[in-house]
């Protein structure tokens, strides 16, 4: 008895020591980019690093860090060094994300806020940024309302609206695959708006909806939905899932041999998803928001090479570019007006066209006036199981669609900005 309690005591001390040692090692490791100094310009990144969106978040972080390097190499913002303060927003916990946004704004006094991948969290922290009048860039949360019905003067978004993605892919699908569509839609705002966009775009081109199901976020087993889809005998089964859901759904659809009976397609697709699929499941017609293999566009090759160096040989994905463009946007806004005043910066970005070394796409990209939405090119094409040149070349772009041609008019988006007087 006494010997046991003795050993526990010893253990406790030893464990505390070990924990402390591990803790110190961790704090000293390269994850920490948060050396908080006073005279720097601060950009707060409130984005997921854990949970479902961790992979996407980490890619955005890689892009963000590269942008930071570029900015500081060119002398920083207004002559001051720029610092990136990274907070893990978690993948779905709005309480945490909002708290982190407040912490970055109130305590760390950041000049810019960047985030979030999860549309819901993006919206939630946009509200905080609006309340505190901080220049906010959303790199990758797609729901329309962020730059639509809930838009704010201080919020800018790099990634597309779901509506733009839907319109971009619709005509190509009708032309190549058929008019009867069956929708498998994830049950949250991103999925809903994506489906609504597709239905609208398809209707214009004579496409019809023959059925559909809302699948909960985080569904692991799609078999019963796929059974229903196949019973409806459509031309195309549309998969609107993102991330791990898309991996699960496509993997199972291909195992069921549905790819041999129907055309499998969707709207937004990401390189992260295709990389997670076994080769036989890398199929279908999709839209990419940015793609690394653009041999004829200037600056892209350099960007790809730099990212490869930073990420251990991996190519940049659309997410990497979102992160890169978001941080670059912050720097550009400040340089434009030679000030860190959020209202001045936001005014300067209205209709602003990103320089080609940041846009990295054939027709460039600009922030639409009165909405804060970036209007870039969209890349429609097919997934391919093995790249000819590179193992990570898993998408074949067949069509570059100009954002202008697929974006709704400003009135249609429902965005009305009220500027502080």
């Amino acid at each position, binding site marked *: 008895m006494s010997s046991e309690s003795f050993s*526990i005591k010893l*253990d*406790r001390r030893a*464990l*505390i020591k070990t*924990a402390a040692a591990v*803790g110190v090692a*961790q*704090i000293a*490791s390269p*994850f*920490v980019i*948060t050396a908080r100094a006073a005279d720097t310009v601060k950009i707060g990144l409130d984005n997921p*690093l*854990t949970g479902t969106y961790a992979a996407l978040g980490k890619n955005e972080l890689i892009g963000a860090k590269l942008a930071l390097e570029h900015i500081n190499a060119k002398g920083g913002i207004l002559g001051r060094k720029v610092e990136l303060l990274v*907070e*893990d927003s978690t993948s*779905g*916990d*709005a*309480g*945490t994300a*909002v*708290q*982190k946004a*407040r*912490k970055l704004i*109130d*305590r760390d006094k950041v000049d810019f806020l960047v985030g979030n991948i999860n*549309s*819901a969290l993006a*919206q*939630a922290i946009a*509200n905080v940024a609006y*309340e505190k009048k901080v220049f906010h860039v959303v790199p990758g949360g797609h*729901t329309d309302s962020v730059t639509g019905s*809930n838009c704010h003067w201080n919020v800018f978004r790099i990634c597309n609206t779901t509506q733009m993605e839907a319109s971009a892919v619709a005509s190509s699908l009708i032309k190549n695959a058929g008019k009867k569509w069956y929708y498998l839609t994830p*049950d*949250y*705002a*991103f999925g*809903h708006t994506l489906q609504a966009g597709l239905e609208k775009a398809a209707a214009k081109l004579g496409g019809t909806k023959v059925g559909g199901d809302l699948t*909960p*976020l985080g569904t692991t087993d799609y078999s019963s939905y796929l059974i229903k889809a196949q019973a409806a005998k459509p031309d195309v089964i549309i998969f609107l899932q993102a991330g791990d859901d898309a991996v699960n759904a496509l993997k199972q659809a291909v195992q069921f041999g549905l790819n041999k009976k129907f055309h499998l397609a969707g709207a937004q697709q990401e390189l992260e998803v295709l990389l997670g699929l076994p080769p036989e499941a890398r199929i279908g017609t999709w839209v990419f928001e940015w793609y690394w293999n653009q041999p004829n566009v200037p600056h892209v090759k350099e960007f790809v090479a730099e990212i490869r160096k930073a990420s251990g040989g991996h190519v940049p994905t659309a997410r990497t570019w979102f992160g890169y463009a978001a941080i670059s946007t912050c720097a550009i806004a400040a340089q434009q007006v030679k000030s860190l005043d959020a209202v001045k910066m936001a005014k300067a970005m209205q209709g602003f066209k990103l320089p080609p070394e940041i846009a990295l796409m054939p027709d460039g990209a600009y922030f639409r006036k009165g909405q804060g939405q970036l209007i870039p090119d969209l890349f429609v094409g097919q997934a391919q199981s093995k790249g000819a040149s590179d193992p990570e070349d898993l998408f074949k772009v067949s069509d570059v669609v100009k954002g202008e041609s697929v974006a709704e008019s400003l009135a249609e988006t429902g965005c009305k900005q009220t500027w502080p007087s």
Partner: protein
Amino acid sequence: MQPADFTKQAPNIVVWALLLTMPFWLSHVGGYTELGSQVVVLGLAALGLNFLLGYTGVLSFGHAAYFGLGAYGAGMTLRYLLPSTGMGIIIGTLIGTIAGAIIGPLIIRLRGVYFAMVTIAFGQVFYFIAFRWSSVTGGDDGLTGWTRLPLHLGFTTIDIQNNPVAFYYFVLVMFAIAVGIMAWLLRSPFGRTLIAIRENERRSRFLGIPIDQHIWISWVISCAVVSLAGALFALLNNFVDPRALYWTQSGDFVIMAVLGGMRSFWGPLIGAAIYVVLRDYLSSMTENWESFIGLFFVLVVLFFPRGVLGIITRKVKS
């Protein structure tokens, strides 16, 4: 005041002094007012859970459900019903309490691990409702399009909407009311029957205490306090999402109670403070913070099962 009374009152005096002055010193130690509000709100939830866990000896691992119901109740009142922060809190608390009261009879006959398991599973029902009924709850995107509103008291208006310090004190008043009621109940004959059940359920039954009925009442009180905390949590963030109902949130409440000390009245509040600050700090420091939180759980369980206050009380006594 007798010296013995004073030692008994000392913890209360210290806790209240710290809480009342928090906005003045928090920023000097690297915090911010909202962090303070969060500690008080989550502390209230942990204290509410502990009414059941520490004082009745019943292990619920599903209290996030009632926390979340309180949050949704408050948010949906403001979003759909009427623009009144006060009504939001009242309705939110009522919804959580009623749900607890209805589920209670289904589960109070169960004990120990089984009770814990069933409470988790029932909690998930509400999670899925919030998650799937997106036309009303906003689903995974959360409930947006509303915000807490200034408090109109007739003679004056308190701007808890834009002034974080005012909101902090508003939360503290709610906290004081709920905590006061719980402390008072625990000193009553009814409170003593709960402690009796915790100490020895068999003996209590043969003292003529109808265990199921008393556990049910304790459960409902606990759910009420936790749903009040949930309502305040919604107002704090101006946002609710299904994550507030998820079972991992329940685990957070339990670890707060254990960490601070289940057998001490203020233990869960101390636990909440430590846990919230630690999490906030760790997740800013390293992307592997989850491992550290997990390790922290393990260390607390293995080496500090009586919690911080438990250890202090023991040291003081010996």
